[in-house]
């Protein structure tokens, strides 16, 4: 059976179901709400696996599922050398969110990423430690800042309520996912003009790590044809 990993709840699951339905494949969650079993019609040999969107990258990288729907941000953050391990088959057009860098709004001298670089050297000289950026996207942010040539910073881990870290003085800047920016404004933060680290959306990924029987390979080919991929 071709294992297709899909988000197990919420808007992301509904949108995924809609996307497949528009292409002639009906996905649904069987039985009661608490039961994580699904049915697939319109394609044969495909089995649904319900997972949290955050677990799907790991399962793809390990080859335990053949296909998976999740955010491109999660794949790029969680899978080392993601291009070698998974392939993005389709950008699905929903789940849009930008990974951005934000600083206190009253830092009027910090408008662009190069300002952050200039300020980080001064900050370190004045405060005795490097300017801290709170995030849960360590790999994406570090790679971005290395590309941009920003050096005197340090990442601090924040798995939630990242916007609050600056007021609590556990960080000076944040890198986080935002779709509207309202939470940022409410926390007196402003996005750097040119610092969009990653523009994420839901994608259908194929694992390059999973073994397939001839039967499965045939079913996968059929499924992709039905989906128009």
């Amino acid at each position, binding site marked *: 059976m071709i294992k297709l990993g899909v988000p197990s709840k919420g808007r992301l699951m509904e949108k995924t179901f809609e996307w497949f339905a528009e292409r002639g494949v009906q996905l649904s969650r069987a039985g009661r709400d608490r039961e994580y079993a699904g049915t697939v019609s319109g394609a044969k040999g495909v089995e649904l696996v319900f997972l949290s969107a955050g677990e799907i990258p790991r399962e793809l990288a390990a080859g335990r599922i053949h296909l998976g729907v999740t955010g491109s941000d999660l794949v790029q953050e969680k899978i*080392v050398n993601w291009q070698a391990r998974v392939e993005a088959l389709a950008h699905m057009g929903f789940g849009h969110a930008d990974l951005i860098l934000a600083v206190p*709004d*009253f830092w009027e001298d910090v408008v662009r990423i190069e300002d952050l670089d200039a300020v980080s050297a001064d900050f370190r000289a004045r405060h005795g430690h*490097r300017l801290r950026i709170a995030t849960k996207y360590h790999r994406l942010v570090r790679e971005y800042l290395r590309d941009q040539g920003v050096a005197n910073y340090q990442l601090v881990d924040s798995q939630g309520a990242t916007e609050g870290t600056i007021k609590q003085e556990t960080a000076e800047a944040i890198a986080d996912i935002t779709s509207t920016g309202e939470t940022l404004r409410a926390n*007196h933060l402003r996005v750097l003009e040119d610092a969009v680290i990653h523009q994420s959306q839901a994608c259908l990924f194929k694992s390059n790590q999973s073994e397939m029987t001839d039967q499965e390979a045939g079913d996968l080919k059929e499924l992709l044809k039905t989906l128009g991929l």
Partner: protein
Amino acid sequence: MSITSEDLSLAQNLVAGFQARGAARVEAAILQPADTLLDLYGEDIRARAYTTADPLRGEQMLRPDFTVPVVQMHMQASAMPARYTYVGPVFRRQEMDETRAHEYLQAGYEVFDTDRAAADAEVLAAIIDALGPAAGAVVIGDLGVLMSAVQALPTSDARKNALSRHLWRPKRFETLLARFCGDSNMSASHAALLSPDWQPSEAEQIGKRQLSEIEARRKRLLEDRDTPSLPPETAQRFEDLLKISGRPHAALKDLRALGAKMPGLDQALDRFRARLDAFEAAGIDLSALAFDASHGRDSMEYYDGFVFSVFGKNADRFAAPLATGGRYDALTTALGGGQDIPAVGGVVRPSDLREALSHD
């Protein structure tokens, strides 16, 4: 690709060779405090080193190399001149190229001596000698030349410091240099901030960075706005400088020729010349050496003078070098709280060396 007993015995031979040159053998802990390494190398080291959390000792890293612990050891003994050798496994995460070993041996030779040219030559000779018949092409560079060129620019200290800080980040360096040549202006995105009737923002002042720091930066931006642009040909001169490569004496001639148009290189080039003389005195075959002005620029910001890489005799041009090294005076200054302790060293990768020797 784990360390074999053959690698270990070859590594012991290398160390014995370095000891025969007068080096004291030293050991270093595998677990190193992460703070020191992070302070020196920046956040990038996290992508390359393994970090562990110890509830009592705080964050520790599996040593990514021996340089920091060896320098710290030297600070405590602090007799000059001094020579050290060591061998042991180092640990690197290999997220970019997964085929590279994440645990491998390094055998090293480090010299702390105020006669810089002689010490540079001594280390390079020791490393080439250690590689024996496997030693092939040797690429040398000199970050000191680039630094001198920056320091001699007719511009403000703030601009020179910004360029020096980004010597190891070519893209940022080029952007800054282009801006200082009048290509674009930092003040464009700061029009409101730099206007004479600027008032601080009414947004809530949150976090550790104070309004006074913003005002101080504003002052610096104003000064920078009034700093005259560098002559437009400066960027081209740096590009020319970074492209210089070839046999050492031919490259020196090219550098001298460029020096006629680019002030401030004379002293650095005199040092370069003295180093070549020291190479010859140490019996290094100059015809096996190739100079590359940009060599060492893409490594960790660590080496700040003479740098070298020695490749295997039959290695293809994309192969990793068998040995690398260079001068790291700024690192010793940072670790030594401002003391000036000239230091140069090199490391051999015994596993790669054994493989190269077995292909002969």
